[in-house]
């Protein structure tokens, strides 16, 4: 790949916590990986000397990487950083990833860095203040114990020397050091991370979390409370005029016109319809934001602004699962309040969703005072704020059953002796690596196959919005799907460039087909490059179907816009096909790291319910049955264990992995200029494992 002429700022900050030192390296050697995840995997490979260490070992390395799009107006791609390291959440504890938006990526680059790397373990509780090229290590005793909001407010005030909101603050000692009206962008942990809860997040601003990989606890183990960035530098762009025009063109074609929308929710109470229209604040799924007073609140550079800031500030930024875990609350405000507390204490919203399972155990007489699983939480007040507060704090501070739940729900359920039974009968549906049921692993298989052949719940919605949510939402509001199943698969075949509608056949036969394997690989490769390496928000990208363009043109943004934006920012002309190859290369490197950690194909099996518990609720997906396309209900389905093993055979072969072990082959690695990775794998004995 040729050298970028824009998008990068040129330096990577290497932070050594053990010795309280910092240095910079040239980012140019790592720019070939795109940025974000690719850059992070490459940095981890180089800086983590022993990749077999555990998450809380001093040798673990955490990388935080921005990308060329960070801090630019590329739509829904400016804000996100990718965070990687050996995570504490998954079982086993794989090298893993998470990400967050907000305004952190742009600020890191404004300070002059494309990425930063955290090594070692601080000898005392520490926070780090980075203002342009100045890096200061501070004792964090006074911050330890504060929640994520208190921590950030304290740091904001310290860094800007108490400058009131909205005033210019002079950075450095002269006016040419820069001036800003912006608050520092802070990444921090709350009490959950301090107490090494494996469900701990790294949090930024109100509701931006790296939540699903237990990296908050890794920071806690390193005595690292927070890292703050304040930058005043500029980001060069290869073709500014083209980028502005692309942004405007994109909005004209794909943005929700807030003043006169082409497609509007047919029922304002059905906020979930926003999944289709992408209107501002649409993350308020299931709960009715119309009962509250707020503004839409977006990440830097977004064109939809899917979150909310409320009139009392409680619940700012909450979204998706984090806003939903306490839907049993007696009233909406307590639901939002519970989500807010969870965010402030710094814990993953998906994991607190186990609240319902715990209540079921209480109702079954298994959990409670004097019961098999001892708990004095006020289950008799389930639905109240009192219960939510007690439950959340129990996890954060490792009290009552929270001491077990802080280890992750699956570990808790195993400790309680309920894993075998409840995982088989579907009471506890955590299909892979200790991660929750996100979408049905028996049906929506690009999600589950990709998850099990990676290291976590993949959490990439690009196909999911269309194949599942569109028909689902339309049925919820009593409407016919916006387009037929046949039209959907044809459109997806075109926009993905897979050119085969059978890739999107979710029938009982289709999910084991070679076409499905092509789709899963496409999703992994697109995700690894565009979503995770270029920071493109998966709530928009890939943009595969447009339902209501103001221009009337149904052509979606993918695959046309991504390479055009990449060229406008970096100056590099890349084809869509080449970008997918980059994604494949990054996935290969990740796979190599997992095999350095001891991965084997035998581990890549789902929890029992996936194979033995039939689906029992309608779950719309396109299916090709009896010679025609429909949205099937996909009832009474399980994943066939043997046929899934054949999927693995073919997928491994497709990716250049050894079919017997799942380890990348030397030939595949060398074909992507990763011979040095093959050498290391071979020295570790991983290539020979059969």
């Amino acid at each position, binding site marked *: 790949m040729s050298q970028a002429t824009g998008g990068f700022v040129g330096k990577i900050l290497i932070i050594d916590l053990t010795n309280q030192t910092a240095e910079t390296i040239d980012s140019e050697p790592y720019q070939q990986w795109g940025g974000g995840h690719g850059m992070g995997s490459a940095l981890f490979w180089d800086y983590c000397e022993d990749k077999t260490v555990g998450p809380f070992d001093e040798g673990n390395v955490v990388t935080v990487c921005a990308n060329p799009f960070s801090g630019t*107006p590329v739509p829904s791609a400016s804000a996100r950083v990718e965070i990687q390291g050996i995570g504490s959440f998954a079982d086993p504890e794989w090298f893993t990833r998470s990400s967050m938006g907000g305004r952190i990526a742009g600020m890191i680059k404004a300070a002059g860095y494309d990425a930063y790397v955290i090594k070692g373990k601080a000898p005392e509780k520490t926070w780090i203040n980075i203002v342009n090229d100045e890096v200061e290590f501070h004792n964090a005793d006074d911050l330890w114990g504060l929640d994520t909001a208190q921590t950030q407010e304290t740091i904001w005030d310290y860094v800007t020397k108490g400058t009131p909101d909205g005033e210019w603050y002079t950075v450095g000692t002269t*006016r040419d050091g820069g001036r*800003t009206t912006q608050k520092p962008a802070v990444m921090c942990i709350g009490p959950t991370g301090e107490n090494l809860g494996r469900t701990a997040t790294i949090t930024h601003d109100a509701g931006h979390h790296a939540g699903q990989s237990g990296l908050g606890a890794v920071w806690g183990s390193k005595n690292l409370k927070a890292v703050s960035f304040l930058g005043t530098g500029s980001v060069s*762009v290869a073709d500014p005029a083209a980028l502005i025009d692309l942004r405007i063109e994109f*909005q004209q074609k794909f943005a929700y016109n807030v003043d006169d929308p082409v497609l509007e929710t047919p029922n*304002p109470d059905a906020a979930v319809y926003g999944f289709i229209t992408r*209107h501002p604040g649409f993350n308020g799924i299931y709960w009715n934001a119309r009962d509250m007073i707020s503004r839409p609140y977006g990440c830097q550079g977004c064109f939809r602004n899917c979150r909310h800031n409320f009139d009392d500030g409680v619940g700012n930024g909450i979204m998706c699962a984090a806003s939903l875990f306490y839907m049993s609350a007696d009233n909406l405000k307590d639901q939002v309040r519970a989500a807010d507390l969870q965010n402030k204490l710094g814990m993953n919203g998906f994991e607190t969703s186990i609240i319902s399972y715990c209540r079921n155990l209480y109702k079954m007489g298994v959990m409670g005072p004097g019961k098999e699983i001892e708990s004095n939480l006020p289950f008799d007040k389930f639905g109240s704020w009192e219960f939510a507060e007690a439950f959340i704090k129990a996890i954060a501070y490792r009290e009552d059953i929270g001491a077990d739940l802080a280890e992750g729900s699956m570990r808790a359920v195993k400790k309680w002796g309920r894993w075998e039974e409840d995982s088989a009968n579907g009471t506890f549906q955590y299909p892979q690596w200790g991660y929750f049921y996100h979408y049905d692993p028996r049906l929506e298989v690009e999600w589950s196959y990709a998850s099990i052949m990676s290291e976590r719940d993949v959490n990439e919605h690009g196909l999911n919005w269309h194949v599942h949510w569109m028909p689902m939402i339309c049925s919820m509001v009593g409407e016919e799907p916006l387009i037929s199943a046949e039209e959907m698969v044809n459109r997806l075949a075109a926009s993905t460039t897979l050119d085969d509608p059978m890739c999107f056949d979710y029938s009982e036969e289709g999910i084991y087909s070679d076409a499905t394997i092509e789709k899963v690989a496409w999703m992994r490769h697109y995700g690894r490059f565009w979503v995770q390496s270029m920071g493109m928000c998966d709530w928009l990208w890939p943009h595969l179907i447009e339902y209501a363009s103001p221009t009337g043109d149904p052509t979606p943004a993918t695959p046309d816009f991504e390479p055009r934006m990449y060229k406008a920012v970096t100056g590099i002309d890349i084809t869509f096909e080449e970008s997918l190859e980059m994604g494949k290369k990054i996935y290969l490197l990740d796979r190599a790291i997992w095999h350095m950690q001891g991965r084997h194909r035998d581990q890549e099996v789902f929890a029992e319910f996936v194979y033995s518990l039939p689906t029992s609720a309608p779950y719309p997906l396109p299916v090709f049955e009896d010679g025609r396309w429909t949205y099937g209900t996909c009832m009474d389905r399980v994943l066939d264990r043997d046929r899934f093993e054949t999927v693995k055979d073919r997928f491994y072969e497709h990716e250049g992995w050894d079919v017997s072990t799942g380890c990348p082959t030397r030939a595949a690695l060398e074909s992507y200029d990763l011979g040095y990775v093959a050498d290391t794998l071979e020295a570790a004995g991983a290539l020979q494992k059969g």
Partner: protein
Amino acid sequence: MVWNMSEKNSNPADGRAAAKTVTRRDFVAAIGGIGIGAILAGAGVSAFLVGDEVYAVEASGGYLLVDTKKCGACETCMLACSLAHSGRTNVNLSRLQLTKNPLGCFPLDVQQNQCRQCPYPSCVDACPTGAMHADPETGVRLVAEGKCIGCERCIEACPFTPSRVQWNYEDKCAQKCDLCLNTPYWDQEGGPCGKQACVEVCPMRAISFTRTIPRQSDEGYDVNLRNEHWAIIGFPIDDAGRVRPDVSVPTASVVPPQPADAAEEE
């Protein structure tokens, strides 16, 4: 409150009193952009007597209006502004400054701080070299960079907080909003007769452009750009942003009533 963008002038009554004392500096500090444009709207020139001097400035050919209650805080306006003007992105060098507190309370959590192209531009008045001036063709208040000596009097003179004139620490000169009259890194024609990058890129349509001199108050520049569609997706549309959207636009007013036979079946 008539104007409150500057802590220097938080009490409008004080401002009105100060305006009667007729020294120029006091007048500028007290009144900022208030009054003159409203008085002389349509005249094309703001001219008035201050102490023993006559001061005349072309009225700007256009003005940016914002709706801070509609802003989604995405900062795209700032990214586009700096990109169009300098070819680089830098929120700190955006002429429009969006300031926000992610942990704050709506509607005070976000402010869109745009230059008001004041009818009485104290920044122009303060400039000792004529670098800060009103463009004779468009009336837009501009900086002639070659004439700027970096004294920052224009920045100090701006009566608003944050100052709408700023020190460009990269190019070493003062800068301010020019309504995109001079955007070498954007192919569109800008200025009062053209387009403004912030207006074009704002996904919430929370920035608009007008050629009519706004009423000289905060409310004159911070306007309500929200209609019933904004309430349908869950946001307040009253001026103050205090009325729940389901009150402004009840669901029943949007969802058609069920057919009688369907209701009977239930």
